């Protein structure tokens, strides 16, 4: 089976737990700073979505207007934050992705 994560960004409610459980899977601590998935919010315009760093598809951009893949990693999140370029790609939590399991709206799901 070739699992991957599917993003349906219009379902996202920006709760941010996907970032936290991703980092917890890697480092056993709660932080959004080492996750393979980043929540992006333009709060004043209520524009928000997800960026996922994958091994097979490059960056998957989960923008509200639709998801797309294949982008190259570059700086993101401001100079004080850890850019996605420097983060590990998603390892699918050894076959049981935590972000998909805890996502309350099924914005993130696992597909073959």
């Amino acid at each position, binding site marked *: 089976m070739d699992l991957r994560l599917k993003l349906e960004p*219009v379902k996202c*409610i*920006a*709760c941010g737990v996907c970032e936290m459980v991703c980092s*917890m899977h890697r480092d056993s601590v*709660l932080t*959004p700073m080492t996750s393979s998935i980043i929540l992006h919010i333009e*709060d004043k315009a209520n524009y928000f979505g997800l960026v996922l760093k994958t091994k097979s598809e490059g960056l998957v951009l989960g923008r509200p207007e639709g998801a797309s893949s294949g982008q190259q990693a570059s700086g993101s999140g401001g100079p004080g*934050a850890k850019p996605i370029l420097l983060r590990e790609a998603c390892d699918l939590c050894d076959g049981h992705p935590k972000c998909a399991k805890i996502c309350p709206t099924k914005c993130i799901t696992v597909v073959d």
Partner: protein
Amino acid sequence: MNLRNGKIGIIDLSTGESSEEDFAGDVLTEGVPRELLEKHGPDSIVLGTGLLTGSLIPASCVGTLTTGRHTMPILGHAGIELKLTGFDFLVLKGKASNWGYIWIRDGIMEFVEMPESPQLNSWQRTEKIRSDQGDSKIQVLSGGPWCDAGSPAAQLVVDHWGGEDKVGMGAEFGKRNLAAVAFRGMGELEVADPEAHFEKSVALMRGHLSRLALNKGLQSYYEGAAVDDFVSLAHRYIGCYGCPYPCRSYLKTEEDPKEMRLMHKEPGYLHYDIPALEMATKVGLSPRDATRVLVRCARAGAEPVAVMAAALASSAHPDVVSIDALLARHDDIRPASKGNFELSFPALKDYETCLGLGLCPRYWAKVGFDIGAISSCAESALGHKLM
């Protein structure tokens, strides 16, 4: 220390000098701000985070701001961001000699002068701070002109939105020449048993969602948001950190609500202030006009219930224009709100316990404040029983 940083930051606004104290309190947080006020002076302002803020327990998003007898929650992503700055609590003492803001990140806190702030509304302050510090994810508790003037009907906004400050905290900022408090959290929190905490939190959340109807944002908490004119303007619902069942509905009034692309920079407003919407209905404003009024109140740092009550007292049919004119005269408008999140529970004690735990009172009142279920989940993060 699990879910804690073990550190209290203290800054004297009059000198800009900062210091630190150890925080050994792996305890419920309710009483800590009061203790800090007793220690550092009753005129201080205390920012705090709850014991479980930033955990995986549903809606563990809450921070607090306390001064005098009053406390307001800090919601959205600001509560967790505050905890990830490396401090559990922050004490702001004294009064600054010049206008400025407190900037907190990476275990550092400093006073940054912003002499132009009296000319800026709350939204402009937030944008300037984010631009100056180069990070759009900075969370900002900002005052506006009403706060600067010390109006008793002032309110702080959290990022751009109002609804948390129903206790006049904005005026407390203004009295101290404090334009805003800004923070960015890039730290981390230790957890006793990450796998157990994850599994228990997922089970707790799923149990809640299985009992709840499909989420419809604010409409799921307030029936006044179910009217057609409100629903037709609804763009998307957005949750605070860790909230699986959001109460926040964003209404677009300046572009098509169904527009999903990033087009207009200020297309609408995020509604979660139930008393403000109730007052808008009483005043006779449509959801569209109520949204426009709340935008103006948020920018001004004015509590909208008080503003609309004053408008109703002076006109039988207030509109956006007349309310806008009222925003120029903050001195003679009195507080009118009886609370927003404070009204989630019949008993104030449950509200205070929720804040102490770092849990959203509105969410937990909705799903049932089951301290036993929370304890079981919390134990996996803390490494010991909650009580």
